[in-house]
Structures are given as C-alpha cells and as structure tokens.
C-alpha cells in the first residue's frame, strides 16, 4: 500500500519537474557524495505475542552510524533525483519490558543483531539558483529495506528458550528529506540533511517450532553530512 503511494508521489513529482520546462544544468549533472549517516531509530512495535510468551515484551533499536554513499542526478535547475545508500549497518535490537522473564534478563539486553540494506530514492527540489552558494532543498521518495544477517544473540536465545531464527520481511515505505548544499566551487560541495523514512515489517521468531511475532514500525531519523563532487 505504501509502496504504491510512494511510487505515485515520485511519479507525479517527476512529471511536474518535466512540465515546468526548466532547463537542466547540463554542465555537471552528476554528483557523487560520500559522508556519514547518523541514524536514530524511532521504534514502535506491538508486544511480542505467541505461545509460551509473557505479556509486555517489546523491542527498541539502538542508534547507529554508518558510511553514506549517494548519487544525485540533476534534472533541471531546481529538480534532482538522489539515490542514497548507507553501508549496511549492524543494528542491535534491545529488549524493552520487564527486567527479566523468569530469571532471564530482558530489559536493556541486546537480543538480536540485524543488518539493514536500506537504499532510498528521492526526488528533490533545490531552492535558489544553481550557482548560489547555499541551496536548501526538500525531497520526497521511497525507501526499500532488506533485513539480513539476522542473528539472535546468546541473551536473545536464552530469553526465547533455545536457538532461534528470525524472519523480518523487506519493507517499502515513504521517505522525506530536508537539507542544504554549500557550494565550495564548480566541482565540490558539502551537503547536510535530515531524513526520515518509514520502515514497516513483521518480526517473527521461531524457537523449537514455537512462533512468536510482533508488528514493527521504525522511523529511521538520519542526519547526513557529506562531501560531493560534480561531474
């Protein structure tokens, strides 16, 4: 559902960009950027439910920092499309709930480590003129997140009751961004931005055939600082 809305938004925006008839800056239409992603995960999950499960078991995800790689293609004097890629960070899912389940520690304990492959495509509108020193921008787009290297920790296995596998289907969701570009010269610039994406999935754990699940919603709030080169 969100996939369709996001694509529709992107498609409409692209059409609008073409319709303005603005001339693209063809001199150096490609930007490659490298920098840092500083991500805070706002997590909202339902309590974990299933057989042999006490109520009140929830999770949060720790902040993470990773490498940012981006490619931006200028479409016109104002519009651009960005493909943002964070080097897949290893995120830590932490128990949120009672101090212990029976006598097994839960609250604040890292129960799983999961890697995120989470590229985002954004259509951005850049204010002011192409040769301005400062160019604020806003953007809207689509995030795709694929969860892999899904490993329950020893503490997670202890609280689950045995070796556990995790399923966390991929997510497609909207993303928004706002930031500014500081032009150093014709080739180099610095970019800082703040992005939020919506990542939804269903967490299901399998311990000795016992399935437990929770619906999870993350809002990765990312501050990105990067340096870019145009060509």
């Amino acid at each position, binding site marked *: 559902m969100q996939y369709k809305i996001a694509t529709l938004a992107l498609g409409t925006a692209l059409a609008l960009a073409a319709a303005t008839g603005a001339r693209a800056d063809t001199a150096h239409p490609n930007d490659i950027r490298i920098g840092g992603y500083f991500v805070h995960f706002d997590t909202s999950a339902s309590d974990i439910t299933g057989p042999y499960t006490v109520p009140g078991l929830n999770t949060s995800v720790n902040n993470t920092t990773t490498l940012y790689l981006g490619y931006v293609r200028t479409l016109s004097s104002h519009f651009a499309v960005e493909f943002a890629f964070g080097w897949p960070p290893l995120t830590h899912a932490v128990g949120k709930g009672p101090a212990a389940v029976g006598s097994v520690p839960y609250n604040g304990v890292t129960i799983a480590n999961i890697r995120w492959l989470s590229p985002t495509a954004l259509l951005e509108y850049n204010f002011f003129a192409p040769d301005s020193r400062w160019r604020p921008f806003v953007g809207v787009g689509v995030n795709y997140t*694929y969860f892999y290297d899904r490993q329950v920790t020893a503490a997670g296995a202890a609280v689950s009751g045995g070796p556990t596998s995790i399923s966390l289907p991929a997510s497609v969701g909207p993303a928004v961004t706002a930031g500014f570009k500081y032009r150093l010269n014709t080739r180099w610039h610095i970019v800082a931005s703040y992005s939020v994406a919506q990542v939804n999935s269903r967490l299901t754990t399998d*311990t*000795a055939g016992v399935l437990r699940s929770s619906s999870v919603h993350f809002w990765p709030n990312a501050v990105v600082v990067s340096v870019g080169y145009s060509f």
Partner: protein
Amino acid sequence: MLKKTRGLVCAGLTVLALAGCGNNSKTATVATSTQAGTLAVDPPLRVASLTASAFAAQLGASPTGQQLLQLAGTPACGVDFYYMKYWTTAPDGKPTEVSGAMMVPTGSGAQCSGARPIVLYAHGTTSVSTYNIADITDSTNAANSESAMIAAVFAAQGYIVVAPNFEGYDISNLGYHPYVDAAVNADDMMDALTAARTALPHSFTPGTTDSGQLYVTGYSEGGYVAMATVKAMQAAGDTVTASAPASGPYALEAFGDAIFFGQVDIGSTIFSPLVTTSYQNAYGNVYKATSDIYTSTYASGIDTLLPSPDSLTQLFQSGKLPEAALFDSTTPVTGNTQLDQLLAVPTSPPYSASQAALFDAGFGTPSLVNNTYRAEYAADALTNPDQAEMTLLNGGTLTSSDVALAAQPAVGLREDFKLNDMRNGGWSPKEPMLMCGGDQDPTVFFQVNTGVMAAEWSPLVSAGLVQVLDLNGTPGGAFAPLQSAFQSTYAALVAAQGPSTAIQSYHATEAPFCMVAARDFFAQVP
C-alpha cells in the same frame, strides 16, 4: 514481486562482496525419524528458567505454594523447564507424537550441576485434554499445580525430572487416552526418558548430565504407570535404581470388582469412561455399543468425551457426565440373593458409617452405568472371583496365598483388568520400592490396591526390599514426621471444611507428602 527483488539484490551484493545474505541464526532441528523415543525437536524449548530464589518467591506467592514450599523445602537449585516433543507408539502400533516436560536443576550448589540422578514421573488422572506439565508459566493449565509439585520436590533439590503428558493430551492427536494400559503407558514413559537423554546435552546447561541413577515414581494413575514402567524396564533389562509408586490402582481387577460390588470411589464417573474407551480401543471386547454399559442419558458420545478441553465443571453442567452417580440407586434384582445383596446400596453395618456414606454418594438417578451391565459384571465377579477382593469382602487378612487373580474372567472389561493388573505375570520388583498411600483414601482405595500388592510380595516386604508407607498410620520409623505432618494437615482441612467436604480432597492432599517420602526414600538408595 518483492521476494524476487530481494533475491536479485542479494545476488548482486554477494557478487560485489558487500553482504552475505544468508547468515541468519537457526532454530532447533526437527527430527525426520518417528522411531519410538526420538526427540522430535532438538533442542527442546525452554519454557522458563528460574533461579532458586525466584522459584521460591513464585511458590511463596500463593497459600498452596507456601504449603508446598514448607513441605518440599526451600529450593536448593534453580530449575529450567523444558517442553519436549517426542515420538512414542500408539496402541495400534503406529508412531504417534506426544509431549512432556524435562526439568533440569541449575545453579552453583554442589547438587545442582554435574552428574545428576533422573526422576521419571507419571502424572495422575486428568480429564482435561490441554494438560501440559511443562508449562509452569500458565497458572490456568490443569497441570500447573502438579508441575510445581514435582519441580519443588525433585528438580529444585537436584534431580532431573522427566514427566510425559501421556498419549491423548496436549499435542497428541490420538483422540483418547490409553488409560491404565500398562504396556502403552510404560512405553510412553520409557520413550520420554530416551528423548530426555537426547535433549540433556543440548540444553542450556550441558554440564548437567545423567548420572545413570534412575528413580521411577508417580501419583494415582501415575502410581500405576510408575509400577507398570518398573515392570517393563526390568523385563527390558534397563536400570531402575529405586521406585516409589504412590496411591495407584495397582490391583485393577480387585479394585474394579470392589467398585461394581457397590464400593464406589470418588472420581468413578471420570475413571469409567476413560477405562472403557481405553480398553475398547486396545482390545475391542468391552462393548458392542456404549449403550451396553452406559445409560441412555450418557451413552451417546461417552467414548469421545474424555479427555476434553472443557473443565469437569463444564462437563457436569452440560449434562454430559454425572458428578458422582455411577450406579442406579434402584439397584438390580437378579433373583440371585447373594448377588442382589452385594448389589444393594451399601449400608452400615456391614460398612462403617463413614464408608457407607462415601459409597452411597456413588448411587443416584440418572446413573452413568446401567443396571444390566452392572449385574452382568458383578455376576462374573462372583462366579469367577478375584481372590484378593473375596478375601477383603469376607473380612479376611491379605496374605500372599489369598490374593490371586480370577482364573477365567468372562466379561470383556474384567479380562482387560486382569491383563493390566499389576499382579499379572508373577513379577516382582528387583530394586527397592516404596508404596505410599493413605488408608482412608476414598479415590484409590488403599487396602485393595497397595494392600494387595504388599500381600502378593510379602516375602519382599519382610526382606525390606518393598516398603509400605501408610500416611494415615500411627507415626513410626523414618517417615514418622511425614505421617504426622499429613495427619495434621488433613485434620486442619476437616476442621475448616467439615469431614464430608474434606474427604473429597484426601487423595490430592496426600500427593506432596508421598512425593517427599519418595525423595527421602531415593536418597537412601544410591
């Protein structure tokens, strides 16, 4: 569509050596074999892990828990509760999946880790199909108090406990429970033990191992199953260090005859459908139609009624099962004076007032069992008598020479009782056995069961290999404190509820005392 995309991305990234997409933690292995004794899921699920103090705190939170804590002692070890799924053999010979509990002691105490003895425990009669002795966390489960009892008495004191739920319960899809079917129940116990021995090295505490000491015990139906298990394990040449069957219906033929003669026990209306369904499935000789045995009020569906997800209260309220009326209060008139007298509603004399009152509660209208069948069974019990029951009826003393089984029972149910009677086969325990019970037990009569087995094995009793503990006897010997404790606990119950209400809980009240006696007994047999 998304799945395909993910696959492509994964493949692409793997090529770029950016990410390995398949390094995910795994769950337990499901066994492909269905051979009896196979652990179906390895390692089994640990349902709960409690330290000694956490377990003590949990028990201390309720009045019954506090009583158990006092009797069993403060937990010396923590307990890890595991839920095992394993394979056993159904009465038709096919593999069937069942479940049970494995409780492993934990903690730093000397008795809590390393090589530990195993207690193989058989649970008592339950009518509830969702019974699961592994789920200590579910206070609404019918097994919860029994689970707490064996955890507190045994696991928290350093014994590894293995306790099957039995065929017909929890995940078992058998559709009925092979009640007091000696061979099937013993196999279930032995298969649970095999599965637990497979599970133990894969537990959260692999340093806790099987010392090789094996103690077999159980209560009520479980006492019967425990004895049947000892018999089967001895026959198979398996090690049994010692056993403590408690309050079980060991002498099934004598006990059945006593009931049909009018000495109706508490719980008879639950035991009857369980027994007839079990034996009808095993031998096909109990009835041609359920109406052969049961009255028209109850016959329809009685063979699929138990075990039930519904509680007993719900079953009684829905009119599917009478609470106590086993036999019609208008008793059969056959023309045989002796038989008619035996079939009459019990009076005092010849019984004591309290005995007569107890038995009379088993008569009413409508009744569960019809008069035609009752007369037929009782007639056979007179014509082809169980010698032990005749000895008791005539007020004689049970000795090893007057407790024989009937030579040739002619009623299907009696034949099946004889087959599964623990006197069958002329066997006797080779290792120490303690038979605990209470002589006023109104649910599983003491004299006709424990008394008969003790008489059957009187040379062993004299030699001290088999011991009898009557919790209601004059306190004496090693178990005197337990006897006194039981008697004062029961007296308090009588004072609080009155004798006719208290008697309903006599059988259940005995249980933890017999289990602590078992533990004390096992400690003496290394």
